[in-house]
Every structure is written in C-alpha cells, then in structure tokens.
C-alpha cells in the first residue's frame, strides 16, 4: 500500500478538456529520420509516456512509492528474478533458480556477461552485497522482506545461495521486487538523483517537476531495447492527461480516468486498452474501536454498500471484489457472495446491534475521487447511518489514520500485490486481530508447495471476508491509451510496474 496510488485527481478542467497543444517534436525522431514507415520499428524513436505520479527522489532502496518502481525496476534496475504483468515469477539476472525441498535453500545461477551502465561487470559479489545491504539496513524499504534469510553467499563466481532460518513462500516474490534489486558495490553515484543498474535502459536525466528520460543501453546483456529512449511525463490532472494524448504530446497515457474515456473513443489513431490490476479500493473499518468491534455493524455496512453503483461512479473501471485477495494474487477465490448488497438485512442487523441512528466519519486522501464519499454517504443513509466525509492530504492521512489509527472509516487503494499479510498483523491500521488468520498466514509462508500456499491463503481470506473486517469496494481495472504504431507496452498492473523491454514504435 505504500503504493497507495494517487490517481484520478479532481477534474478541475473537465470543461477545458478538448485541448489543442502544439505538436511535440521528438528529439530522437529529428536526428534519426522521421516516424518511419508503417509497421517497421524505428530504432531512433523516442516514446513519450504519460504517468500520474512523479517520484520525490530516485533512491529505490530508501524511498517509498510506486512512482519509482514504475520507472526504474525492470527498465533500469533488475533483480535475480522478475515478474510478468500478470504476476508470474521469471528469471532475469539468474539463468535459473532452484529451491530445496525443505524450502530453506535458494540457489541462483548467474547470467554471464552482464554489465552495469557504468561499464563494470556484474559479479556474484555485487549480488551478495546488494541483498546483504537490504537485509542489514533498517532505513531501506523492504528490509523486512528478507527477515527469514539467514545467510547470503556465493560459493563460486556463477552462483548465489540464500539460506533461510524458516521457509518463506513469499521470498521469490519479494526478490522480484525492490528487495532483490542488484546494484554495483563499487559504484559511488548519488542514488537520489542518478541510477546505475543492469537494465535495457539507462537513466539519462530527471528534470524534477517535469520529466524523466531513459536511453537505450547499448551494452545491454539481453535483447537490446527497440527504441532509442523513453520520456516519462507526469499529469496529475486527469483532463490534462487526456489532452496530452489527443494532441500527441504523449504516445502512451497510463491510468486514463475512466469517467473521461468517452473523449478518447473514436479518436483516430488512438486505442484504449483495459488491463487488470491488484488495486484494491478498500473501505477500511477501525476493527479495534467501537462500533466496529460488533460484527453485526461491520456486516451491516457491507450489506448496505452496492459495489455496482460505486463502480459506475468511477466510470466502470473496476470489478467487484468480495474479499482481501484480488484475482491476480495467490489464494484468490470469488467471495462476492459474502455479505452481498442487501439493505433490508443491513437495517435488521443494525437494529439487533442497537446501532440505529449511527453517525460515522470517513477520512480519506484527497487524490481519490470525491464521488466515492458521495455514493457511500447516500447508500449508508438508506440504512440509517449518517456519514461525515473528510478528505485530507496524503501526508495528514498517513499521520492520523495509518500511524495513529485515529479514524472510523477510511478509503485506500491498497495497490500492492501479495499484501495479505496486513490482515495477519494486528498492529496494522485495520486493527484486525484474528488468531486463526494469523496461523493460516504463517502456514502459507512456511509451505513449500504452491498449492498449499494458495489453499492456506484462500482459507484465511474467506475468514477475513466472513468477519467483515472491511468492505472491498472494487478491484480497479486500468485503462491505457496507446497511439497507433506503438507496440509492446504493458497494459496490466501498470500502476505497479512498467517493463518496457519490448516497447517499439513504427
């Protein structure tokens, strides 16, 4: 959730959306001939990509936020393993990996001939050092991901071995993320403003408040990038993003606001693709505080909420989600029948709980649409709950809700994949404390067989949903607008990662 996405800002400029912008002259095109013939990839092309949220700094090891993962992981930095846009684990800097049958030893064979962007060769020592740093440094993000790792070593120049103190079925997933990124031990570059990785693109420049430019790495160990470069531009205003893609300022626009998508349908040369995500728009209950200590109140709120109406209010960019695990994650089961929409039953439950005329407050960050609060207010009104909505800035939300647990209801896009552990952590802001769930989660981590992992997680998720520990409003789908001629751009999970290795432009 550190990734709590910052999408769909208020549409201040909805009225001014059919914009004209001056055509962008792409630097790479002017030097390498124009856009090239249709169908033939133009190796000199630069692709302009519109994103929502700009990173605050570039230090992938210490600074939170998906804005960094999107730009830097896969493209600039790589790990031993990586993940596809549908969350399958694949080898990257490792040619293969094996896990011992007791789940305690992970052995990785390294690719040969891998170079860092500064020209240095990748060694097993760099890998050991990188992982050890994450494990040992308290200020690093994801340091907890390697908690089960006892030792990291390289018995020879081609091999890295991780020994665990207890099995951790989440380890490969963690290594496909920030915890597993391989940096160069001898490098002295300032990680806050520069990057030195092994990926297909180098970080060419970052003009804060404006754009980030990647360039093709000519010494890349794998298949070299098909475009000369990628420029990321940031549009926090949804209508500005639409304008940018219509005017051609960007070739690709991610996270298109679904309520404005009609402006793009039928526009020549632009297609709109829908993709899956693990963005779980969650209505969190403060389970540790009254009235949420009463399961009848929690269930009543779930039954009072009509997810379909909420999905309509956000432009249809979502699918119903009945429990804590989304479709792309291990342990998913369709739980939408649990506490489904039933306002009559909700009123009965509230009456039984003695909670008639309930007054509740809903606190959420101001980059989520105000319509969410409006729809919830009117839906809860129908069962006799008066909702007061308060939108704050994200930093205030972190302080009051996440850290101090000073809230009743909150909406957050829990965007991270594989984050079920939050329901097994009674200290998390959900305040949800269920021993059986915690046991099952621990068993899922300890399991060495993926089928067992999935079963344990699914069982735990069912309990969390039956307990009405929160209401899962919807799992977002994401819209990407792509100009004709651009291929190889991922369309699923774009809010988490953007692997541009296959990107091409003709």
């Amino acid at each position, binding site marked *: 959730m550190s990734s709590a996405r910052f999408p769909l800002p208020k549409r201040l400029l909805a009225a001014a959306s059919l914009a004209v912008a001056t055509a962008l002259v792409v630097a790479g095109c002017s030097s390498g001939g124009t856009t090239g013939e249709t169908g033939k990839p133009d190796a000199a092309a630069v692709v302009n990509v519109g994103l929502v949220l700009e990173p605050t700094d570039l230090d992938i090891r210490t600074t939170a936020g998906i804005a960094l993962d999107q730009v830097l992981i896969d493209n600039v930095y790589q790990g031993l393993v990586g993940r596809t846009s549908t969350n399958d684990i694949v080898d990257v800097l490792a040619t293969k990996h094996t896990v011992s049958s007791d789940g305690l030893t992970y052995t990785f064979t390294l690719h040969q001939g891998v170079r860092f962007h500064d020209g240095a060769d990748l060694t097993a020592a760099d890998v050991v050092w990188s992982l050890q740093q994450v494990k040992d440094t308290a200020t690093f*993000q994801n340091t907890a991901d390697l908690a089960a790792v006892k030792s990291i070593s390289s018995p020879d120049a081609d091999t890295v071995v991780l020994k665990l103190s207890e099995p951790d079925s989440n380890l490969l997933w963690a290594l496909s993320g920030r915890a597993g990124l391989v940096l160069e031990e001898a490098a002295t570059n300032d990680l806050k403003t520069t990057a030195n990785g092994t990926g297909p693109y180098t970080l060419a420049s970052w003009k804060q408040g404006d754009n980030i430019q990647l360039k093709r790495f000519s010494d890349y160990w794998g298949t070299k990038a098909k475009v000369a470069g990628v420029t990321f531009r940031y549009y926090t205003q949804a209508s500005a993003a639409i304008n*940018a893609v219509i005017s051609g300022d960007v070739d690709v626009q991610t996270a298109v606001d679904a309520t404005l998508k009609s402006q793009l349908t039928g526009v020549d040369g632009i297609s709109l693709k829908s993709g899956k995500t693990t963005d779980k728009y969650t209505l969190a209950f403060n389970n540790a505080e009254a009235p949420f200590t009463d399961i009848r109140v929690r269930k009543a709120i779930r039954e009072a909420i009509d997810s379909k109406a909420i999905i309509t209010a956000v432009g249809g960019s979502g699918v119903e989600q009945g429990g804590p695990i989304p479709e792309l994650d291990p342990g998913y089961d369709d739980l939408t029948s649990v506490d489904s929409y039933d306002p009559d039953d909700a009123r009965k439950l509230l009456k039984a709980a003695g909670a008639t005329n309930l007054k509740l407050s809903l606190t959420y960050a101001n980059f989520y649409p105000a319509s969410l609060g409006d729809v919830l207010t009117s839906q809860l009104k129908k069962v006799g709950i008066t909702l007061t909505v308060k939108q704050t*800035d994200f930093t205030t939300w972190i302080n009051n809700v996440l850290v101090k647990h000073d809230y009743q209801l909150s909406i957050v896009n829990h965007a991270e994949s594989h984050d079920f552990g939050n329901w097994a952590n009674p200290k998390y802001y959900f305040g949800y404390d269920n021993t059986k769930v915690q046991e099952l989660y621990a068993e899922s981590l300890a399991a060495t067989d993926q089928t067992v992992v999935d079963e344990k997680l699914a069982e735990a998720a069912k309990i969390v949903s039956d307990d009405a520990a929160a209401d899962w409003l919807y799992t977002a789908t994401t819209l990407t607008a792509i100009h004709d001629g651009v291929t190889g751009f991922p369309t699923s999970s774009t809010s988490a990662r953007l692997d541009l290795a296959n990107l091409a432009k003709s």
Partner: protein
Amino acid sequence: MFRFVLSRLVLLVIGLVVASALIFFTLRLLTGDVAQVIAGTQGTAAQVAAIRTQLGLDRPLPVQYLDWLAGMLHGDLGTSLVTGSSVSSQLLQKLTVTLPLAGMSLVIGLLVGIPLGVVAAVRNRRPEGTALSVVAQALAAVPAVWGGMILIAVFAVALKLLPTQGYPSDGWAEPGRALRSLLLPALTIGIIEGAVILRFTRSATLGALDEDYVRTAAAKGMTRTRAVLTHGLPNVLLSVVSVLGVQMAALLVGAVLVEQLFALPGVGRMLVADVGVRDLTKVQGELLALTGLVLILGFIVDLVHRAVDPRLREPGE
C-alpha cells in the same frame, strides 16, 4: 538619502529575521512527518526513527532553527530532506518559469490598468467611465483559478490559439513555445492585477483632477484631459509605484495558484508539492527566498519613490 537607505536596510534585515522565525516555527505545526512519507505506508516505526536520525530531525527545534540561520549567513538556503539537492539550485531553476510569468503579468497589468484608469477618471460619471469602474471592481474580485478556466475555455478550447496547459520540457531553449505557454497564465494574473491597478490609477487621477495645478493649466487654455496627462500623470504614477510594492506579493501568490492550474513547473507548483511531502527544509528555504524577494522589491520601490518624488527629500539633499 544615506540615512534613509540605512534605516530601510535595517528594517529589511529585521523583517527577514522575523520572517525566518515565523516561517520555521509555524511550519512545524503542520501534521505529518517527512520521515514517514519517505518510509511509506509499509514503513516500520524503527525505520521511521532511523530516517529521522539520519535527517537530523530528532534534534531540538531551536537547534535546527539556529543551524538553518547559520547556513543562511553563508548564503546556503539548505538542502531538500527528500532529494538531498540544494534548495537554491532548485529555486533558481524554477524561477526561470515564475519570474517571467510574474514579469509578464505585471506588464499586462500595467498596460491594462494605467491607461484605462486614467480614462475611467477623466470620463467619471459618464456611462463609459462608470462601466469601466464596475468592470474593474468585478474583475478585481475574480478568483484567479476561475478566471484562468474561463480564459482556457475561450482561447485554448474555443479559439484553439494557445495551449491549455504545460510547458516545453527544454524550457527557454524554445523561447517561442515557452512564451506561448506563459501567455494565458500571465493574462490570468495580469487582467486581475490590471483591474486593481486601474482602480488605484482612477482614484489617484480623480484626486489630481481637483488639484490646483490642473485647474491652473486648464485656465491657461489646455483641455482638461491634456492638463491631466501632462501635469497630473507624473503624480498619478508615483502613487501607482507605491501600490506596486504591495502588489508584488499578490503577483507571486497569484503565480502559485496559476502554476497549479496551468501545470507550469515553477516555484509555486514546487512549493505545493514540497508541502505535500512535508519537505520542511525545502519549504522554509523557498518561503524565505520569496519573502526576501518581496521585501527587497519593496525596498527598491521605496528608494525609487523617494528618488522621483522631490517632496520626500530631506532639506539639503
């Protein structure tokens, strides 16, 4: 004159020190913590504490304040808690957007406000004069955000003459594009600012119309309009100059809002983003620089005012 300059300089320095203390301590009242933002929503308490120590945020506030002041005596505005880059370099980069924006707005404001202000005064109590006053009154009350949206709707959406938003990524390397990007934002601030200047010009001109020297000039055969233009206008401009000193601050505040609306990568937008992540070291450096800018401009306006107005000079000057 020397004593005057010296006394103004002392006031300027006192103003800056008071401003620095106000900025530093009021910012600390904000809810939220940059260490928590850096650590993110999955950050543990230990991680947050480690980051606070690393950034020096665990030291007592007065120590942090004095540290900051000491840095500033060496011309160092501090470094960002988030990016580690120097505040002054970031500020200089963003000022290449904000200063031209403020400058263009001021020029537009003056071009609109002064001639129309004189006309409104000379045509006072006639339909055109009254109309000008009413329009100015209304425009001066328009919120910049709303005004900007109307301008976008007219010039960018309907007439398709100018871009709605944004700024060329290589900035002034393409002066034409940069100027086009700044024109609508500058109009937004400039027209509203012009309305304010118009009202001041009008009342100053009305005052001048009643002055003896205008009546004398008229008695000598000049038309009233001519008399106002030749003899009244220099006096009118003096009062406009003193108003400008105050309006500089309004211009900069206007720039902050308008940069948001037009997605311009200027100081205002940077300031809002920095407050958002609670990069207080950077915010306080930026605010103090802006305050300093306004105070120094005010200081210059004072000097100019005194230099051009012989009535303010001391005996013997």
